[in-house]
């Protein structure tokens, strides 16, 4: 793996990104359906998926538009949902910080939960990876996911409400995220962080969108470092 060239690192990324199509397709299609049902044009639904390219915040914005919340509140709610990505951005700095600015900008555009998790899992598993390969791997992961996200949004917007509720697609996201977390629980410190995240996240669920999650994540990171320190 350490000898992987840029091209094979990219292909490895494509392979690691494939499983996430399982969640990107239904989630994006559901967004397309919901957007059209909420009265948005197909172009607007696509605008969300191309320019924002962040599922949870797209749904948050849509909900606020339906509720006639006004531009400021809509933006506030949807951006709060995305604040976790600042944490992702910070945690990628040790791996990608030395890449040229334009590449870091491209990585940023493509930085969503799935690409982030797949990339960090690979970077942690292979400490010898060169910078060029890390960047290539990241773009590899995003390659199947990003275009599929956009196309599935279009499919959902065109097909409309013909996707049955019984498919329980609302649960595609939780299942995929849980499936991503399971393999990451390698040490007691990781388990402690995850548990604290769950408990605080549930306790603060009543706070305005995204805020409870940020507090939960901060507590969980601290818990991870504390448990790690005790065992060292």
């Amino acid at each position, binding site marked *: 793996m350490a000898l992987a060239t840029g091209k094979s690192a990219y292909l490895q990324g494509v392979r690691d990104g494939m499983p996430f199509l399982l969640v990107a397709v239904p989630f994006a299609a559901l967004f397309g359906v919901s957007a059209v049902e909420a009265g948005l044009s197909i172009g607007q639904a696509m605008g969300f998926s191309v320019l924002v390219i962040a599922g949870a915040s797209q749904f948050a914005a849509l909900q606020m538009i339906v509720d006639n919340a006004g531009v400021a509140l809509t933006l506030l709610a949807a951006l709060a949902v995305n604040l976790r990505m600042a944490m992702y951005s910070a945690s990628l700095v040790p791996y990608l910080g030395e890449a040229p600015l334009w590449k870091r900008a491209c990585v*940023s555009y493509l930085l969503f939960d799935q690409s982030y998790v797949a990339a960090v899992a690979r970077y942690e598993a292979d400490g010898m990876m060169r910078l060029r390969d890390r960047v290539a791997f990241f773009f590899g992961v995003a390659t199947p996911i990003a275009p599929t996200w956009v196309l599935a949004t279009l499919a959902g917007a065109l097909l409309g409400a013909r996707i049955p509720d019984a498919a329980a697609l609302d*649960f595609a996201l939780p299942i995929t995220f849980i499936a991503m977390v399971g393999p990451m629980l390698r040490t007691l410190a990781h388990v402690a962080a995850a548990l604290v995240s769950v408990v605080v996240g549930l306790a603060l669920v009543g706070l305005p969108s995204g805020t409870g999650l940020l507090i939960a*994540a901060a507590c969980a990171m601290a818990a991870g470092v504390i448990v790690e320190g005790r065992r060292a």
Partner: protein
Amino acid sequence: MTDAVIWTVILALGVGTFLIRFSFLGLIGTRPMPPLVLRLLRYTPVAVLPGLVAPLVVWPAATEGAPEPARLCAAAVALAVGLWTRSVIPAVLAGFATLYLGLWLTGAF
């Protein structure tokens, strides 16, 4: 909202989201970060995703917030299989299989 207002929301949200993603990657670049910060950041994925997912599992929107056995079991199985196999795909498949089996057994399917 009118079309123009919705497009304003889309554009502003796109720019804002990009700036959030670019924040640290763009500004810090090669500057070294304090060791404690690096240690904290190592726990980012396991600190964010569980807290994001937990409310969706316990109070699913599809049932208007009522806890629902099929979804709870699906979450538990996805976690268990992920821990056991150390890989994502079997965990996703097992989670979905459990969800549909559970929904079928509870007559919601």
